[in-house]
């Protein structure tokens, strides 16, 4: 996790970046870390950053977060991109529907970020009271939650009462890993006799309604997704429904049978050419510069009459090797990785993965590995970490 500190209106903020996910319940490691931090790390507030160009997909995460914490600020980023695509979002209405403050930002524009920090501050010190809207599940699941809630309420610590609904849901869903983390974090036991009895009752009730452990989660997720859809229909306006047409056209060319792979080879070839020829000049400069310093150092060692083996070890051994490595490796890396980052920002890398997936599948891996393989041309350490 990354830490950041900032000062705003003479207040210090400690910001913690938790792994980006689409959801908090599918048990990948990132999601577990994210969930546990929000739930048990006692943050003063949680900021959820959404992509304005695909709000609906992101709202899923918002709802799941609202289930586990009260203090949330929703930040709708990339408003400039959305504007370009003729997407209009009614942030006030979104805020009303979610019951938490919503701030629109354009990350490049500092003013919008100040606005975000103001809101975060106000939420932290309870100047803005959040009243997050909880998902209403289908009646049968709501009934089950109701059956359990009084028992769970007795066990949960007073300060964590707002988690009752969520804990009940996880108990019904038999999500053992989450239940375990909850028990460990709060030092409680959620498997007492009353609860087990109720759970038994609930299981029978669910069975009567044709719900078992395999389709229960579907029903829960569907509920969340339909709520997200509903909200989106209310707050998002596509002024021109063909807003994705241009992107689609470009995609079609980039992934076409005829041009897809040649364009990819062209792009990567160009990057390698720029890297290899471009790196020669700074390499030369660096090695000249280090050579000059080495000469001066040798003079100095002669001047103080240092024994020859010392200057041998220190200068011809250590200094020369280190500077050689720097002058040979640094320039290509400093050129290759930024270029690669540009491709990433353009969104071209997922297209490469898409084009190559079939070939990588034959090696029992995914198209994404093409990217880490490419990074290996810049530096093998980066590749190994990626794999």
């Amino acid at each position, binding site marked *: 996790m990354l830490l950041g500190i900032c000062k705003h209106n003479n207040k210090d903020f400690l910001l913690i970046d938790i792994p980006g996910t689409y959801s908090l319940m599918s048990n990948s490691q990132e999601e577990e870390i994210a969930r546990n931090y929000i739930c048990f790390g006692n943050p003063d507030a949680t900021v959820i950053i959404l992509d304005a160009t695909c709000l609906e*997909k992101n709202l*899923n995460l918002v709802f799941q977060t609202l289930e586990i914490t009260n203090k949330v600020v929703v930040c709708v980023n990339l408003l400039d991109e959305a504007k370009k695509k003729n997407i209009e979002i009614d942030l006030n209405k979104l805020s009303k529907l979610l019951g938490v403050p919503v701030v629109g930002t354009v990350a490049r524009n500092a003013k919008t970020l100040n606005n975000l920090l103001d809101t975060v501050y106000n939420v932290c010190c309870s100047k803005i009271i959040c009243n997050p809207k909880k998902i209403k599940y289908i009646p049968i699941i709501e009934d089950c939650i109701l059956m359990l809630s009084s028992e769970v309420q007795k066990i949960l610590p007073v300060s964590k009462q707002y988690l009752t609904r969520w804990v009940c849901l996880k108990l019904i869903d038999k999500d053992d890993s989450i239940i375990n983390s909850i028990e460990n974090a709060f030092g409680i036991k959620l498997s007492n006799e009353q609860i087990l009895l109720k759970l038994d009752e609930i299981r029978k009730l669910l069975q009567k309604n044709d719900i078992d452990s395999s389709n229960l989660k579907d029903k829960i997720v569907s509920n969340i*997704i339909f709520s997200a859809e509903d909200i989106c229909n209310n707050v998002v306006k596509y002024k021109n429904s063909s807003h994705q047409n241009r992107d689609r056209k470009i*995609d079609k060319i980039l*992934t076409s049978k005829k041009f897809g792979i040649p364009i990819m080879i062209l792009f990567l070839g160009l990057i390698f050419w720029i890297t290899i020829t471009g790196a020669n000049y700074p390499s030369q400069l660096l090695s000249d510069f280090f050579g000059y310093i080495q000469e001066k150092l040798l003079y100095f060692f002669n001047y103080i009459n240092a024994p020859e083996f010392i200057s041998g070890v220190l200068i011809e051994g250590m200094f020369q090797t280190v500077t050689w490595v720097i002058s040979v490796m640094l320039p290509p890396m400093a050129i290759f990785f930024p270029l690669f980052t540009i491709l990433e920002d353009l969104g071209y890398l997922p297209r490469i993965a898409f084009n190559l997936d079939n070939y990588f599948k034959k090696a029992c891996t995914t198209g994404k590995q093409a990217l880490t393989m490419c990074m290996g041309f810049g530096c093998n350490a980066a590749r190994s970490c990626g794999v």
Partner: protein
Amino acid sequence: MSKIHLTDLPMNETGKVISINCPGHIKRRLLDLGIVKKTNIIPVLKSPSGDPTAFLVRGSIIALRKEDASLIDVEF
């Protein structure tokens, strides 16, 4: 209206998801991406080698391999 596999859905035609029969971890991933019953799904791009295919779902594009897409039934 007939029930077909997602892989048989013609390009740029809208299908409505009826059932998802993928193994657990893939199914969960699909749920996270918003693919549940009654969701509209449109195949929009094919990779140069024909597999995977990219689908438009809820305003974003995701790619699915043939073996996963064939386990999703849609109404068309």
